[in-house]
């Protein structure tokens, strides 16, 4: 029953992960990491691990994205490689 949702979310997770390492703009990478975390959060919720999903949503998608954006704000937006 849950397989289709699972597969769709997993596809999004992989897309976000590949996009996050291939995008040149570091601000975009930070946002893509946020999207990745949120998809992982959905995956945990589908599996029934609600506590883990809650942690992922608040820490992974929330605060760590803000930390990434803050770090990009203070360094450079372009990657060197």
């Amino acid at each position, binding site marked *: 029953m849950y397989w289709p949702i699972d597969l769709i979310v997993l596809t999004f997770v992989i897309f976000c992960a590949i996009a996050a390492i291939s995008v040149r703009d570091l601000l975009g990478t930070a946002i893509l990491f946020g999207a990745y975390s949120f998809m992982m959060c959905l995956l945990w919720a589908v*599996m029934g691990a*609600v*506590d883990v*999903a*809650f*942690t992922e949503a*608040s*820490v992974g998608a*929330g*605060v760590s994205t*803000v*930390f990434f*954006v*803050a*770090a990009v*704000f*203070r360094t450079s937006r372009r990657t060197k490689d």
Partner: protein
Amino acid sequence: MRLLGFLVVCLTGGLLLYGTGELPDWGDTNSPASLHLSNDYIEHAMEQTGAPNLVTAVLADYRGFDTMFETAVVFCAGLACFLLLRDFRPKKTRYYRHVPTGVVLHVKNPDKQIAVGWEFEDMDKDWVPSDTIIKTVCRILIPFIQIYALYVVAHGDFSPGGGFQGGVIFGSSLILLAISYNLKTLMKRVSEKFLGIFSAAGVLVYVGIGAIAMVLGGNFLDYSKYAPIFGEHHIRALGMLGVEIGVGMAVTAVMVVIYINIVSEGRHDEGL
């Protein structure tokens, strides 16, 4: 070199995928974890601890020692950020903005300071005009986020959530204040000294609850020894709540400390 790196990544990923084939299926009742341990928790956790949320019962009671050191790790992360990034050197030049006219003053003498009030306001290199819509929306939203964070902490043993998540949400609400206004507005409300003491106090609350249980004649973190003081009813769930409050305090303060140190390069004067 790039090709070599790509090959190494592919090889490691392939090995990991190969390894996952050996793992038990999702929800497999014959997996080693489900045979003894999970059954024991599911059958006895409610009567032993009185906490309906099994995850919290395991995290804060059965594995309370682990969670204590996790809190200590979070505290150490905040401490490391402070020690690495904090910069106590005073700023050489300052910028002020005359509010009625919009004229910007550049004061190069470090000893000379202009009193900030309704006439002059602080300004820095990254100053952008403040947006009334963003300010108002965040101002309305922040109290609700904070109430929700307190709800998550308080209901840790009844529903998903707990001290860690609640602390992160409370910390994010303070970070939102810094983003929507400016860093100085946040620093006026919560000083650096307060954050440091608050994060250490969170760890102290956790350790203290464990140590007082020892003083009362039990093991470390044995909440049932508090029964003579607080009564027999749900005493272990009550102990978990106390511990969660400690975790929440530490995490809230550490999140804000990390943010202000990263965003202002440790100078705590200007930032996002």
